[in-house]
């Protein structure tokens, strides 16, 4: 899969911006790494919320992709933590989860999520486009 390409143009994307991916599911983590690393972004992966806080404390991310169901600190708690912090409150957070109940979407939005995406209902192409859009704005 190493020589696969997506309809993206890495040259236009600022390279030094940090994309922080918070995901505990291994296959997803591998895919994210493959997808975005190849795009030339600085990609950091955390497997839970508190690990994400540590990484963010070292370097403020330009965008966070956040799963909800995770051990230690779940996505909701992490949203709360980031959005109440002066340092991180402006970092856009896109929730990428397989939870899809109205109540969960509403909760995430109320906690400050920029977008809420149900993973299985979106194509990989669309995810990349969304990420690129936000990183371009950052």
């Amino acid at each position, binding site marked *: 899969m190493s020589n696969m390409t997506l309809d993206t143009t890495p040259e236009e994307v600022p390279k030094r911006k940090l994309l922080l991916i918070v995901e505990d599911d291994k296959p997803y983590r591998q*895919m994210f790494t493959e997808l975005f690393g190849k795009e030339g972004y600085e990609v950091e992966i955390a497997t839970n919320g508190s690990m994400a806080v540590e990484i963010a404390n070292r370097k403020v991310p330009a965008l966070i992709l956040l799963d909800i169901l995770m051990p230690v600190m779940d996505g909701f708690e992490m949203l709360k933590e980031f959005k109440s912090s002066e340092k991180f409150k402006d970092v856009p957070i896109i929730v990428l989860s397989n939870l899809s109940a*109205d109540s969960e979407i509403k909760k995430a939005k109320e906690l400050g999520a920029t977008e809420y995406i149900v993973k*299985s209902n979106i194509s*990989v192409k669309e995810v990349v486009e969304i990420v690129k859009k936000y990183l371009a704005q950052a």
Partner: protein
Amino acid sequence: MKKNTSNASSVSVDLTSGDKFGSIVELKSSEKKYRKLFETANDAIFMMTADKFVDCNPQTLKMFGCATKADIIGHHPSEFSPEFQPDGKRSTTQARRLINAALDGKSQHFYWKHTKLDGSLFDAEVSLNKLVLEGEEYLQAIVRDVSPQKEVERSLVESESKFKAVVENSQSIIFLLDENLHFMLSEGKELSVLGLKPGEVVGQSALDIYKDYPVVLKHLKSALGGTFVRDNIQIQDVYFDAFFSPWKDKDGNARVIGMAHDITQQEIAKKRLQEIDKLKTQFLSTASHQLRSPLGTMRWKLEMLLESKEKENCPELYASMKDVYELNLRVVNLVNSLLDVSRIEQGELQTHAEELDISALIEEILEELAERAKAKDLAIVKNIAECKHVFADKNQIREALQNVFSNAIKYNKKQGCIRIDLAQNNGSLILHVYNTGVTIPENEHHRVFEKFFRAESAKNLDVEGSGLGLFVTKSYIEAAGGSITFASPIEFTPTIEDSHPVEGTLFTISLPVKE
């Protein structure tokens, strides 16, 4: 009584002794009167000694079924009685006792079972009085046939005992309350589940006994006011299916008649079923979520593979991969439908109403489905009017319309047709979706919107379907305050210009319009 007795004696003197006592004018006139009375009386009147009849009036002959006086006179009364009286005592013994008591000067009045000459029985009321004539002791007997009254009495007793038996042996609780809601009757074996004995609360006020059960009091008052109420009520740990009926007694007093049947076991079973159903729904929800992770991963991986340059090198592999990808999407959709169902069943359906451009939404969906319609070479005819002011949840309405349009394609025949009419009238948006696909047999009509239902005719088509689409569609349309119905088979003309109607199925969606 005494006077009668003496008069009767004078009558009998004349009758029995003829001219024996001579004649006085006054006496003769009196005698005539009493003879008339004696002969025309409706009661049997006769004279007897301790052991035989000595004279009788015509009614006696009639009552005892005798042709002449000779059939009676000289016979003992017990000859006109059955061997035993209804109380089980021997007639001869009993008759002797009564005759002797009367002869002792104590007038006797009693009920007696008599027999006629032919042996048939009748019920009688008998009066026995002592007379003394010329130093001889006689008894005057007046016998009244009371068979009809006895018959009525018997049937009343029988009916009451039947009623009593029914009430007392009733499993259900039966109660009657007066206008002040005091118990007049409380019977039924199930009283024991409340720790009560039959009749125990009679005289007590239901307002006191059920003061902690406002629902019971409310129903009792409603029934007193003339309204019939049926409800499931809970008293202590017991569930009852209870009726409260208004009633008026013969004097017009308001009463409440009620019946309550213990349905605790059924309620417990129902609750358990509900719990199991809830668990099932939760399981469905959890399992679906769990499925989403690997399915989503698979989807992205397949998409990445399909985008890779390798596809040119191995077209067969690429085609197979594309098939797998399509299958993956189908399972993703199925999981989404299952999650929709579990959400609907858990009552967690939330709607976010916004103003919708339905005609644009229809075009958008048709655009998405265009490839599939083209594959079947379907003609799509649209008569779409502009519709405004429809407020509903966009995602839900989109999914509902998608299901209906997708079905119209999926179950259609090759080179068939779909006609879509959208119009707005009388505060409603009406969308008709006709298709020339399989019709739904009438015996399956009632199940079309049930979950997991698929019409036999649809199954035979070898078309994939979960049986969830229309269930979800109906839930979403109804959540928006609308309705969905169908007609199948139905004849329609694909376009106004067409003169030949075709057969198919019509789904009609109605949504409210806010002016």
